[in-house]
């Protein structure tokens, strides 16, 4: 479904061009959850933004190819890219505080993708939005629909983001550190929500995180990045039991261990 080959990302907003991603390869089949792990600055978010077609075409020069369902994301006309974004590919971000527009009601924001990609009327859109809010396990969707982002907690906001991202039943959901800013208990809830969505709707998920233990709970396959390079990739359990790269070993040993008894 998604095929990324030899992706290099170079930034040209400084005098000396800076390469942030080297030779990035990735394949995602529909319905799969793939983890992308690395520390801040490893290029994981940049790769994800490129896949979602969100990297500015002027500042960032990209080489290689990103093909999503036959569409060449890097070189296709903007209209085609726009028709894919929010419809077949959608994305959720780390900071649920800043990724929702503070002056618009939740309902309006959840419906945005419907407004752009479908010709549903107002009533149909509202029905669909309420259904989605219920889907992400928010109590009292009617009230949430009418609320503003600041009236909700961090966990609720992230659920709203997921509802907005999932409303057109995309084929691929890119989740960029969706739980990092949340409390542990809420983290666990969001992870199980993503799991459920994947199982019920068959949406493929690219799950970006710096937390290997979280990735282990969610993803069958994992890619480890460091300073712009992929240093390890494969089945999650395989990587845990037999890490090839020194950095991966380091990551695994950094997970705090609790051994009762």
């Amino acid at each position, binding site marked *: 479904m998604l095929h990324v080959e030899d992706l290099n990302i170079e930034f040209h907003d400084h005098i000396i061009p800076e390469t942030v991603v080297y030779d990035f390869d990735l394949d995602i089949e529909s319905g799969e959850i793939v983890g992308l792990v690395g*520390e*801040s600055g490893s290029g994981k978010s940049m790769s994800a933004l490129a896949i979602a077609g969100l990297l500015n075409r002027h500042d960032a020069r990209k080489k290689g190819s990103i093909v999503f369902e036959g569409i060449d994301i890097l070189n296709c006309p903007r209209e085609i890219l726009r028709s894919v974004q929010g419809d077949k590919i959608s994305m959720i971000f780390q900071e649920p505080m800043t990724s929702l527009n503070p002056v618009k009601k939740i309902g309006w924001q959840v419906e945005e993708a419907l407004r752009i990609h479908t010709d549903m009327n107002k009533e149909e859109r509202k029905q669909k939005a309420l259904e989605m809010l219920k889907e992400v396990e928010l109590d009292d969707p009617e009230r949430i629909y009418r609320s503003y982002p600041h009236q909700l907690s*961090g966990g609720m906001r992230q659920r709203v983001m997921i509802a907005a991202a999932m409303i057109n039943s995309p084929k691929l959901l890119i989740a960029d550190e969706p739980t990092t800013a949340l*409390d*542990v*208990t*809420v*983290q*666990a*809830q969001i992870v199980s929500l993503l799991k459920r969505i994947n199982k019920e709707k068959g949406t493929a998920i690219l799950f970006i995180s*710096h*937390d*290997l*233990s979280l990735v282990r*709970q969610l993803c069958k396959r994992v890619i480890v990045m460091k300073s712009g390079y992929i240093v390890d990739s494969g089945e999650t359990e395989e990587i845990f039991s037999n890490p090839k790269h020194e950095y991966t070993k*380091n*990551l695994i*040993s*950094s*997970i*705090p*261990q*609790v051994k*009762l008894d």
Partner: protein
Amino acid sequence: MSDVCNNQTRILEVKDLFVSFTEEKSSLFDKKKKIDVLNGISFDMYEGEIVGLVGESGCGKSTLAKSILGLNKITKGDIIHYSQYPQMIFQDPYNSLNPSKTIEFILEESLKNLTKLNVEERRQKAKKRLEQVGLDDHYLIHKPGELSGGQRQRVCIANALMLDPKLLIADEPVSALDVTIQAQIIKLLAGLQKELGLSILFISHDLRVVYELCDRVMIMKDGKIIEDGTVDEVYRNPQTDYTKQLLLSAGIM
């Protein structure tokens, strides 16, 4: 509450602490709203102990830390220190170091204010502390902007140690850092605690990190301490549903 370390010297006593804030008025005619943040907190800390303080954001754990250090007003209750110059390590290493000063200036600030050491003695002490946190002394001339998050947090730890405190309060010192760096900082804190005989109040939301580092753990919810005991006791046999839920979410139970 807990009977650990009963025969040791007390270093901190918090008795029936209440803190509430008044919300800023949004218009001239609004009534001031009072928000209770801490609702009757009592606990003791003993010399050489690492105590974990766990709770979700908004439960009042940072307020408790600041109250203990006199950084905000308390409404009711007592805080008794049995040691001099308790210090704090903050969560975000990006705004806990003054960006316009050199590392040397930052480290020597407290010595300038509170001791009579001369220039050379101050520099020697700064070098020593930097070395103890694993940085070499050429960092003295750098400014915080030139350091990585992990290095900054090391500088913060060195800075907290400049006055030879006995009590250190660490407010989520690793949650803004990458996992591998987290592990290094935890190791560093554990080492320093042994070397210097510190008592550390370690605030965190990560029960796994608390397990690695702490002897004792206190669970906080809605401004109250709802559980207090040795890490083993609490993790094996949690008394409240909330603690159980926390343990479950962390994948421990």
